[in-house]
Structures are given as C-alpha cells and as structure tokens.
C-alpha cells in the first residue's frame, strides 16, 4: 500500500507541475478549451485516485472542481475569472494536501467548504474568504518539510538500459582486472582500481534493487479479480494474501502475472464449489483462496491454495486416456501425484463444461510452459474434497543466475543451480550403477534414475566411466529426476547470462553464455533441453518410470539448516522455521537493548545468537525465524549446508538456546530450540482490543514515566478526556480518584504509606505494579 501511495503522490505531483502552466494560460484566456480539458483531466484523475485511497477531503475538493469544470465543458456555464480563481485555489489546496500526506502530517486546516462554495455560480460574496484561505494553503505548503522520501516515475526502458550497461561494466571491469594481473601493472593503479571495483559492485546492487518490486504490485489487482469472478460465477470467495513485502524482479512480476491470473481463475471456476454444495459438504459457505509469497534462498515460492473440491485424479486419467495422451495400461500405473500432474498435459482439463471464465483455450500446460520459461517450476497438490494447492517456485531475477560451473572433456560449462538437487561422487558407496542396454541407470537413496554423461551428450569423443565422474542430481521443473555425470565440479558463481546467436541456440543444448572472471566465455547449459534430447521428458510413461521407487524410502528426516554460530559452534535449525536469510550491516545491530535488536529493511527485529559485538564484523548474516505471528532474527557466522535431521536429539539438561545435541555428518551439533527462542525474544502480539488504563490528565510523572510501563503491560493509555469505562484507573496520592470505572490503583510516593493504605502501591514498586496490572488483565480476560 505504501508503494501505491508513493506512486499516487508522485503522479499527482507530476501532474501538478504540468497543470501549473496550463492554469496560468487558462487564467489568461478562460475560453481556451484545450487548457480547460487538461485541468479537468487533472482534477478527474485526482478524484479517481482519492477514492481508491481514503482521502475524503481531497476527494470532495477535486469532485467539486470536476463538477464545475464539467458544467463549463458542457457549455452550461462560462469560465468567469471568478471561477478560474476558485479552481486555482482548489488546485493549490490539492498541492498543499499532497505535501501534507507525503510528510505524514494531518491535512492542513479545514476551509475546503469555502473553496467549494466559491465554485458555486452565485457565490459572489465569498471572494474575500477565498483570498484568505488561498493564502492559508500556500503557507501550509511552504512549511511542509521535505523529510519524507520522494519517489519519481521512470520509463522502464531507461531502467533496463541502465541495468544492461551496469552488467557490461562488470564484465569490462573483470576483463580489465585480468589484464592488469597479466601485465603486472604499477601497484599505484591497484588502489583506485579496487575502489572503482567496490563502487561498481554497490551500483550493481542498487540497480538490481531498482528492478525489484514488492509482489504487492501483483497482489493489488487480485481482490478485484476474485470479486468479479466469483460474482460472475455465483460463488462466494474470500481472498487472503500473505507476504506482499517479498521482492521480485520487476520483469518476473510481469512474466507471472498471466499464469497467476489463470490459476486463480481455475481455482474459482473449477475448484471452489457453489455455496449450496459447500454447505452440503459441511464447509463454510464462503470459499477461501489463500495466496502467499515467501522467499526461500534465492527463489520465491508462490503458493495458491483453495479449499474447494480438489482435483479429481481419476477423471483426469479418463480424459487423458480419451485424449490419447496416455494408454490405459500406463494410466493404471500412475500414483496420485502423477495423476494430478496430468493437469499440465496439453488438452486435458477436469472442467465438465467450458465456461466463459476459464474455458478460453489456455490450459495449465501453457501456464507451466510460461513458468518454466522464466526458470521456474510448478507443482500441484490436491486432496479430493479438501482443496488444491499449487506452488510456483521462481528465481529472484532473470539476468543474474546463480550457477554451478562444471567440466566436461577439456571444457568448462555452467548450469543453473536451481536445477541441482544434490552432488555425489560416482565412487560413493551408497550409489549403484546398472546398465540397461545402452542406458546407464543409477540408484541414489533408493531411487533409480537415468544417468546421462555430459561429455557424451555434448558429443565428446572420450568420456569418463560414470563411476569416476561426479554426479549432479538434477530435478527438472516437471519433478523428474536424473543424474548428469560430469568430469569435475568447479565452483558456484553468480553469472550474468547473455543470449546466444541463433545458430548456437539451435543446438538446443545451451541457454546462454557469460564471461568468467578470467575473460573466457562459458556456455550455460540448457538442462531441460539436454534432458529432452536424451528423451527423458515429455513422455508420461517415462516420467512414471523414472520416479519409480525401487526400495522403500528411508525414514526421511526433518530438513534443517546447518550453520556456524557466531560463537563458533556448529548448529542446526529446522528449515521450516526459517523465513529468510539476510545480510545486514553490523551498524544496524543494537546489543545494548534488551532483547538485542537488529534493523532489517525498515523494521526492527529481536536478535538472538549474538553476545559479543566483536564477533559481528562489518556485515552479519541473520536467519529470520518466524512462528507465524512474529519474527525474530538469529545472527550466524555462515551457512554450512542443508541437512536432514534423522538421528536422535540428546536433550540438553537446561532449557536454553539449544534443545539438545545431535549428530550431523558425524559431528556433534547443537539443535536450536526455536520454542525457547520465541518465548524469550519474540514480542507477544498486541491484543486487538487492549484493556484501557486511565492516567490522570495533569500528572506529568504519570504520562512520561509511568505510561510506557503501562503500555508494556498491554494496556492502552488514556487520560481523563476518555469517555468510556477504563478497565483500570491510576490515581496518584493526593490527586483525585477518577470518577468513572473499574479498579483504581493508587500510587504513593512514600513506600511507608503504600503499605498502610489498601489498594495502593509505592510508585517505584515496579514488580508489584506490573503484577497488579497483569492480574487485572487476566481477570478481565477470564
């Protein structure tokens, strides 16, 4: 919402600047129709936008001006100089209000009714008043502080060209750095070069951020979409949005707009039942559509869940068989997940009839293709009768891809890290190879999957035996798993990927190219293309076979993150508790407060995991842990790995940060006790309807020293002007007890006296006072 507001303010300000000139010209020649139209457009737009936000006074003003101008445009009224002045005054006032809104102040003093009255054709006598209030307005404007951050609007093309220039700069810098190394440049050059290099990195980061947009921009239009669709289909649907503050590459937001809309359409049209059916099924009459966005590493998980009828797997199978996509025999071999995945096959839908809403000939296969085109993946999970959940996993950005560089033959290649599930060495004891004709199969963790040799796929003459190579287990967007045998693994790198010439793209093996720091070009492998060439995908039958499990799956552990704490200890925390991992500047850490706090973005989070400021360095990585309601940050030294917690946790003797110790990779590792962490660090969520505590109005001590304590105890502080009944009232000794309401606590400045008078406390008896407030509060709740 803040973004939208900033945009509204920027737009209005821009229009104000443009309309300023028009106003002057109109004043000189009130008959000028073009000027009139421009001003009319301005007030009309402002009116429209105000209705969207809640600015009734702004709306009233612009509405009145619009009405008057509309009369003039319709020729029912002439543009008298007096009307011009009145409109000018209103435009000025709009400017003043925009300033005030931006500065977060109250809107300037009232007097709009005078301005509005001046527009009336017969309000000849309000001219004086008008002059006065116009003066007012301009006064308010000049005093408006410029503290608030302003935003401007830029053409997208400009932003993109800056981004691409910066990418080129980085490449040129790398090139220069390599040449300097080779040529052995004068050391005096190194200092400035390093500085240039650092600045360039900062610029790149800033530009990347410029391209990032909160996903709110995408979410903003959804409530309306859902409302319209449900009205059209005679259903009742409530939309629930979560995670609007997650940021995504602007281009990516555009790319997923249509797929997301389509999924929502499907959910409302096919998923959520009409009210009568819902009631009959024992559900609430109103269906819910829950859309949540979450950042997980360098991917964004976007989940769309409905509580509708779910996907009928059997009907999908019937349709698929009827459409000839799979044979009857194949159909019988499918499990539930595979059946539901059929929804992504072309030409298959469970819709009994085509409706105007989702029957537009665009199926989920197109949705999947679009998501995969941007390097994302899509999964569907449905329980008949209970609902469907579709999860999109998307990369953060399109142009910089976290990659793994691998060697095949004598050459280096890159592959997107998002595909990589696991890396194992061919000689590892827990994997087995099997030959089936020319094909090689490998069994890893009880799953038998196809094994491709990268050298062989690329047509190199000699290749290593799979046993001697490194296997990269790859999970394709469709969920298929296969192993790619490479000669060597080199490095993880963030690569700026450039498109390839058509002749090279035509091979279907590469997705792009980039320059490494040493200046050599490297090809980015098109993993999906390679799999397609090897005929590993696009065939339901093979898909089912590839995921066929040859052995009962081992007891799966809880996924957890292994990291090094700032105290140097190895620790794990369950992955489910982690919301995000962030790098923050150590300057944003405040260890002096209790609990310690850290600034992330523009919010303060309680910070755990750090005891010594010296351990922080300049930047510190923090895990953002969430329990659904509140979030806390946990400072770490570095991330080691993601692991599965399978072994037993030996419980710690004392409750504390660690719930116990477990074995990870043969080393003792502390398991974080997230329950304890939240209990100690997270602020209890504020009650929606806090109890009210009345403090005596005139008492300076009560309002400055006591009030924070009362608020911390969960009370809302009011003074004597409060009309309702306060749950508790504080009286100070000698002061008058408040007339109305509830319990009264009297505070005495003399500890001796406090003991004598019942219901009174010494005013610095903090423990007693807090206990009394807490007791009253729980009494109220009971």
């Amino acid at each position, binding site marked *: 919402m803040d973004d939208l507001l900033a945009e509204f303010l920027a737009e209005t300000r821009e229009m104000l600047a443009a309309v300023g000139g028009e106003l002057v010209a109109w004043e000189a020649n009130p008959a000028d129709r073009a000027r009139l139209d421009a001003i009319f457009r301005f007030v009309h737009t402002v009116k429209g936008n105000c209705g969207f936000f809640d600015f009734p006074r702004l709306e009233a003003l612009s509405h009145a001006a619009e009405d008057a101008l509309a009369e003039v445009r319709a020729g029912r009224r002439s543009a008298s100089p007096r009307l011009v002045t009145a409109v000018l005054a209103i435009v000025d006032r709009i400017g003043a209000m925009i300033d005030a809104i931006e500065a977060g102040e109250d809107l300037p003093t009232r007097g709009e009714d005078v301005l509005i009255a001046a527009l009336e054709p017969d309000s000849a006598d309000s001219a004086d008043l008008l002059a006065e209030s116009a003066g007012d307005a301009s006064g308010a404007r000049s005093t408006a502080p410029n503290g608030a951050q302003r935003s401007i609007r830029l053409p997208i093309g400009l932003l993109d060209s800056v981004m691409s220039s910066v990418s*080129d700069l980085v*490449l*040129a810098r*790398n*090139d220069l750095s390599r040449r300097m190394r080779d040529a052995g440049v004068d050391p005096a050059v190194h200092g400035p070069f390093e500085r240039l290099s650092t600045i360039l990195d900062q610029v790149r980061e800033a530009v990347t951020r410029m391209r990032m947009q909160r996903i709110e921009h995408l979410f903003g239009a959804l409530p309306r979409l859902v409302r319209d669709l449900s009205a059209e289909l005679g259903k009742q649907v409530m939309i629930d949005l979560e995670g609007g503050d997650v940021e995504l590459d602007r281009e990516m937001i555009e790319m997923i707009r249509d797929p997301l809309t389509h999924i929502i359409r499907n959910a409302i049209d096919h998923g959520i039942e009409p009210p009568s059916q819902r009631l009959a099924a024992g559900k609430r009459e109103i269906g819910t559509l829950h859309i949540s966005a979450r950042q997980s590493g360098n991917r964004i998980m976007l989940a769309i869940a409905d509580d509708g009828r779910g996907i009928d797997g059997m009907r999908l199978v019937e349709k698929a068989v009827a459409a000839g996509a799979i044979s009857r025999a194949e159909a019988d071999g499918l499990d539930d997940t595979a059946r539901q995945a059929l929804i992504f096959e072309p030409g298959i839908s469970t819709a009994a009839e085509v409706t105007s809403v989702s029957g537009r000939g665009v199926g989920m296969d197109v949705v999947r293709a679009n998501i995969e085109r941007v390097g994302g993946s899509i999964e569907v999970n449905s329980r008949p009768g209970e609902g469907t959940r579709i999860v999109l996993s998307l990369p953060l950005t399109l142009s910089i891809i976290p990659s793994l560089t691998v060697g095949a*033959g004598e*050459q280096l290649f890159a592959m997107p890290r998002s595909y990589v599930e696991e890396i194992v060495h061919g000689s590892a004891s827990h994997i087995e190879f099997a030959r089936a004709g020319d094909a090689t199969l490998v069994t890893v963790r009880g799953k038998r999957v196809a094994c491709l040799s990268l050298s062989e796929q*690329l*047509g*190199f003459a000699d290749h290593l035996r799979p046993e001697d190579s490194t296997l990269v287990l790859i999970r394709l967007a469709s969920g298929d798993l296969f192993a790619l045998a490479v000669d060597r693994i080199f490095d993880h790198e963030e690569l700026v990927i*450039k*498109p*390839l*010439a*058509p*002749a*090279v793209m*035509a*091979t279907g*093996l*590469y997705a792009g*190219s*980039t*320059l490494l720091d040493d*200046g*050599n*070009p*490297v*090809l980015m492998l098109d993993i999906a293309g390679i799999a397609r060439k090897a005929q590993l995908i696009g065939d339901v039958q093979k898909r089912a076979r590839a995921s066929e499990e040859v052995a009962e799956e081992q007891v799966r552990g809880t996924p957890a993150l292994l990291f090094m704490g700032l105290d140097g200890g190895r620790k794990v925390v369950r992955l489910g508790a982690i919301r995000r991992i962030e790098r923050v500047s150590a300057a944003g850490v405040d260890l002096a407060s209790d609990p310690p706090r850290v600034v992330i973005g523009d919010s303060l989070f309680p910070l755990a995991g750090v005891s010594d400021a010296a351990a922080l360095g300049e930047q510190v990585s923090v895990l953002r842990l969430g329990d659904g309601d509140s979030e806390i940050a946990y400072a770490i030294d570095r991330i080691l790995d993601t692991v599965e917690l399978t072994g037993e946790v030996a419980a710690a003797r004392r409750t504390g940060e660690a719930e116990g110790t477990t074995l990870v990779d043969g080393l003792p590792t502390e398991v974080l006790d997230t329950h304890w962490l939240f209990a100690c660090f997270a602020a209890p969520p504020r009650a929606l309807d806090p109890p009210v505590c009345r403090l005596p109005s005139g008492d300076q001590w009560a309002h400055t020293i006591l009030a924070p304590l009362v608020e911390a105890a969960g009370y809302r502080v009011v003074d004597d002007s409060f009309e309702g009944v306060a749950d508790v009232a504080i009286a100070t000794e000698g002061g008058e007890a408040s007339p109305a309401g509830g319990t009264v606590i009297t505070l005495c400045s003399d500890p001796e006296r406090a003991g004598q008078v019942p219901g009174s406390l010494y005013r610095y008896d903090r423990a007693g006072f807090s206990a009394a407030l807490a007791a009253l509060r729980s009494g109220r709740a009971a």
Partner: protein
Amino acid sequence: MNQLVVVIEIAGRRAALRTAEVQSVVELEAICSVPGAPRFVLGLTALRSNTLTVIDAAAAIGLPPHGLPETGARAVIVDHSGHRYALVVDAIDDVAAALGDPAPVAGDAGFGWDRVSEGLIETDRGPALLISLGALLAGPPLVAA
C-alpha cells in the same frame, strides 16, 4: 551505388561486405568451442567483454571449411540482429569503393555462393561477390550440413 565495401577472400574467391555492416577487424584471442553446434560455428570468443560467435565463412557458405584459425589471426567483426559475430576468412584485403550496383552473376556463381551473394560488384580492386550477411550467418541448408 557509390558505397564502400570491405574486400575479403573466402575459399580463394574475392568477396565483399558493406562497410556499414562491419564493426572492425580484430585479432582473435582464444576460441572456446561449442560442442554440438553446426560446423560453421567455430566457437565463442571474448572481445572487449563481449561474447562473439566465431563463424567459419567458407563453411557457412557450404564450401570446405577454413578450420580453426590460429590465435592472433584476423577476423571481421560484424553485427547482425542483435548479436555480434567474428567472421573467419582467408584474407582481409582492404576497403574499396564499389563502382555500381550489384549485378547478377553471368552464369552460375557456384555451389553455395548463389545463396549468400547479392550479386557481383565492381570495385577498384577488381570484381567481388557482395555477401548478404543474413544469408551467410544462417549457415548452409541443413541437408548440406
């Protein structure tokens, strides 16, 4: 037509490229091969932090390939529909003025040349076949490859 062309030699024949299409002539550095690519694509190379696709001009016409050039060999840098290419040719002669419009070649220009050539132009360095960049970079038809 009074324009300048770069006169080059491909597979022993004199050919010409419009100067407007030629970026520069550079000495090639190391070439990184592209496994699986058609024969006329020799690989990728880096030039001033750009990635170039290196094209064997003879092979792209459908003639016996020139093969990988040595490091330091000169190549013609051209831009075509957003991509930058380095053309490996037998020799790069000089810039010359074209004397007149391209004229159809009397008789058959020979295998492959018909496809990539816009016609014969007279230059002050003798007659040359004017190369159509788009046709050249598309490579020989798949049947021939």
